[in-house]
């Protein structure tokens, strides 16, 4: 399949964009994907996280747009108290502004992490050596429990 933008190189990236309930298929080569902003030029990831997040949020809460049109209601935007990042900004740039954002947007994150990390939402790796404190003990306990369970 050839790239739909340049019609020269073969299409190596294939997306289904969902916006406002409409599906739209995109087949492009990597060069055009970068030029047209489907993927970030420097990202190590081969697909657009931005599109992914946009799709997820729209899907998750399709009614919000309707209520906000009412002149008597103002929608309250979720905003990180620490760095000021709003949910809308997070959706647009697909980047957290600070550590606190993870708590601020915590309710919205599981579906995103599941999609990005093969269904996983919980950390299972290293704990900081110095600052990990009781977590090291907890991890050891977990390991012992698991070894008994088997």
């Amino acid at each position: 399949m050839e790239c739909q933008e340049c019609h020269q190189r073969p299409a190596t990236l294939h997306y289904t964009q969902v916006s406002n309930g409409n599906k739209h298929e995109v087949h492009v080569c990597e060069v055009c994907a970068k030029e047209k902003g489907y993927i970030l030029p420097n990202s190590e990831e081969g697909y657009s996280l931005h599109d992914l997040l946009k799709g997820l949020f729209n899907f998750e809460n399709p009614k919000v747009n309707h209520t906000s049109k009412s002149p008597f209601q103002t929608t309250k935007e979720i905003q990180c108290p620490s760095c000021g990042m709003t949910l809308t900004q997070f959706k647009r740039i697909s980047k957290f502004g600070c550590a606190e954002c993870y708590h601020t947007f915590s309710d919205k994150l599981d579906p995103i992490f599941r999609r990005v990390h093969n269904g996983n939402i919980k950390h299972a790796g290293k704990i900081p050596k110095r600052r990990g404190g009781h977590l090291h003990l907890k991890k050891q306990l977990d390991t012992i429990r698991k070894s008994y369970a088997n």
Partner: protein
Amino acid sequence: MTLRHFMNEAISPWMREQGPDGDIVLSSRIRLARNFADKPFPIVAELQDLEGIHQFFKKEYEHTSFKDYQDFEFISIRNLSTIEKMVLVEKHLVSPLLTKNAQTSAALISKNEQVSIMVNEEDHIRMQLYYPGFQLNNALNEALELDDWLEEKVNFAFDEKRGYLTSCPTNVGTGMRASVMMHLPALTLTKQLNRMIPAINQLGLVVRGIYGEGSESLGKVFQISNQTTLGKSEEDIIEDLQGVVQQLITHERNARKRLMEQSGVQLEDRIFRSYGILKHSRIIESKEAANRLSDVRLGIDLDLIQDESHSILNELMVVTQPGFLQHYAKKTLTANERDILRASLIRERLRIEA
């Protein structure tokens, strides 16, 4: 160790050693993303916050050493010329993004260039550690110790549930990207690799050409890395990656053997034509150079070419990049001038060797 050294030597000291499975695996890399717990991430931070971090790293780590990684050189990206920045990127010592954030970004690079700690990239800290050949376990163990060493002075953003917190949701958890650089000429020539990529992707791993675009990579050098960073331990991620790399090595070796058996003369012809062109051409584009170099490297690995060194692909791939050529010429060059200089540098290099 000075900046001049990083600029003049195309090939990092650690790359001169041929690591395990070095005929196929060029290098193994572990990269860890970390952030300060109490500072906004670079994407939203005020300049003064980032400048504070910049100064902190200069004060605490300039000319320090950690284990075998001696005498960290602290490089403020804002002090570099455009060409100097290009060279550091072409050597994979820093990322393109680091050079874009030039106002406050910096890098700490060890004398042997095996360790590079990027400051104020997408995250506050991106440390990367290289090993020659296929040595992911060694690279991981060393990287985790390096991480502990930095943690002595920095409180990392960490959450019990989400792990190490990063600016991009794709890095959260371990913050680790493990990758292996592989030269896969036989799998590319026989078009087997393209058929294997979907299966590899399903395991949460990514294959990409490192010098070219898309799956048609330049020089048939590919990077295999993990996509998933959350929900698996560092060791498990490495194990999955190792399994796939091991299989690719086996397949590549088999494909090379079959090529030699079934079309030995054609393969030899292809390799020696490329060798001849590199030895004698007067103008050569980067794409052609990369592919000819890959042929010659294959010829060396198959013992068809005996008096050249294995590191020739690594070295000439870097030397023939635009930044390096212009650094060598000490001026900006047009594309045509670059093609002429590239051909001449390759000719010279092959003459030294023979």
